[in-house]
């Protein structure tokens, strides 16, 4: 695909639109899903099945006044929500939804997504710091230490997959899982990997995505029962809206990564329809799992969370890395 001005602009617009629409309707899905789990109807007044609820909520948020607390660092306060949204949208650029639908495929795609994810944690930090609110401050420190702790097992697990694929190109990784359903990375015995620990690394990766995106049960950054609303305590209006969208965009990216690295990307288990639909089915099933988990479990403690990372996930993923390296040497 040739890089032209038109392509770039369209790609950026599509990425933003995709992120925004996803964020809006994932909120809707989350509310409906939570309601179903709790045996309530959920939003059902505006439009059929309440489908007009997200745009109306958006309009309401936009109509609100942006209040900046006195004593806050104004520039950082405004910059933080933008910073939350920016990396998420940038990451969409390199995610291949199918063989053709990718804005810009890069041979360092995996690395790029992690680099921008790292950028995302600074937004939490600045949001918490600039709010001049003790709850926000505590929450942002929590959230950042959490993201830093979970980046490590996540990266190690990704390296395992990269080692198996021999490439950091997301397209390439998917291509190697093509074929039957059994050649997906998550299934150990038939694919390229021959690594029987692959389901475990899938689990580790999925847990890390939960933690990286600050989702329950790891949502310590916005632990509403102890830290009020966490790092976005002081945010109202579209500032809050951007954080919200950023969170859901991150969920989508995390699920995309899981799909690509473990579930064979757009590879279809059996024919039927084109690959991009399979990608989207896998993506939304993972997101549904996110929602399902969110409404089932209580929140962990901060030390429980760090213990999980340092005492369980990192040793296991390191062992997995060594094991995979050994296997690659043997086979």
């Amino acid at each position, binding site marked *: 695909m040739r*890089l*032209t*001005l038109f392509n*770039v602009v369209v790609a950026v617009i599509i990425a933003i639109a995709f992120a925004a629409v996803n964020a809006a309707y994932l909120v809707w899905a989350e509310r409906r899903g939570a309601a179903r789990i709790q045996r309530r109807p959920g939003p059902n007044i505006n439009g059929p099945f309440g489908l007009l609820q997200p745009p109306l909520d958006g309009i309401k948020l936009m109509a609100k006044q942006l209040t900046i607390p006195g004593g806050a*660092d104004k*520039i*950082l306060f405004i*910059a933080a929500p933008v910073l939350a949204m920016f990396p998420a949208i940038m990451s969409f650029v390199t995610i291949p939804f199918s063989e053709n639908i990718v804005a810009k495929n*890069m*041979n*360092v795609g995996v*690395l*790029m997504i*992690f*680099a*921008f*994810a*790292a*950028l995302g*944690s*600074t937004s939490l*930090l*600045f949001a918490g*710091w*600039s709010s001049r609110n003790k709850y926000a*401050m505590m929450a942002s*420190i929590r959230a*950042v*230490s959490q993201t*830093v702790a979970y*980046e490590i097992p996540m990266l190690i697990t990704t390296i395992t997959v990269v080692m198996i694929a021999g490439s*950091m190109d997301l397209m390439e990784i998917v291509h190697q899982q093509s074929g039957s359903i059994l050649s997906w990375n998550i299934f150990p015995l038939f694919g390229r990997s021959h690594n029987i620990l692959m389901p475990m690394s899938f689990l580790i990766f999925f847990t890390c995505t939960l933690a990286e995106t600050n989702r329950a049960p790891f949502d310590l950054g916005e632990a509403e029962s102890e830290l009020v609303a966490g790092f976005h305590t002081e945010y109202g209006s579209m500032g809050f809206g951007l954080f919200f969208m950023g969170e859901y965009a991150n969920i989508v990216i995390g699920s995309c990564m899981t799909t690509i690295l473990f579930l064979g990307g757009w590879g279809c288990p059996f024919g039927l329809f084109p690959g991009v639909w399979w990608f989207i089915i896998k993506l939304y099933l993972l997101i549904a799992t996110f929602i399902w988990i969110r409404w089932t479990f209580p929140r962990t403690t901060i030390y429980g969370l760090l213990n999980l990372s340092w005492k369980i996930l990192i040793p296991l993923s390191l062992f997995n890395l060594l094991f995979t390296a050994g296997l690659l040497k043997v086979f």
Partner: protein
Amino acid sequence: MNQSMLTHPNLFTVEGMAGVVFLILIFVTLTGGFIACTSRRVVRAIAGLIVCFVGVAGLYFFLNSPFVSMMQLLIYVGAIAVAISFAVMLAAPEEKKKLGPTGPLEGPLAFGSAALLAGGFSVLVLKTKWPAMAKTNDGSIKEIGIRLLTEHSMVFELISIVLLIAILGALVLARRED
């Protein structure tokens, strides 16, 4: 004047776009650096540093090295800047003292020496004629990996030992004596 200055890309081509993006990156880098060095608030300085590093990562991208560019983001922004912010939050929670403009040497003196340096280097750069040589390889990630583990393996190992020692040292230093 250099040879490449002679090309005049059109604004509406990809090369022209790249030029615009490059100008933005220069602006971002220098503004970020300026904020980082002059802001009186520590956190703003860190924000400036982050902006500066993002700009530098972009410059690396223009230098045909996406790998180093991403590593720049991952390490500098994701690790170093965050670590500095952490230290600020731990060590100066009240931000009682803002960063003073004057240091051991007074502000103008520092500014003078910095300006002298920048000016001198710039003049030097513009005066010098840099020879270009033929490339022997493409500088891809694969090449980097191979060279890291063959030619530079000793340095690589030493760096890892340095990092390990640094981590241990940091732990020892930051521990409270109970």
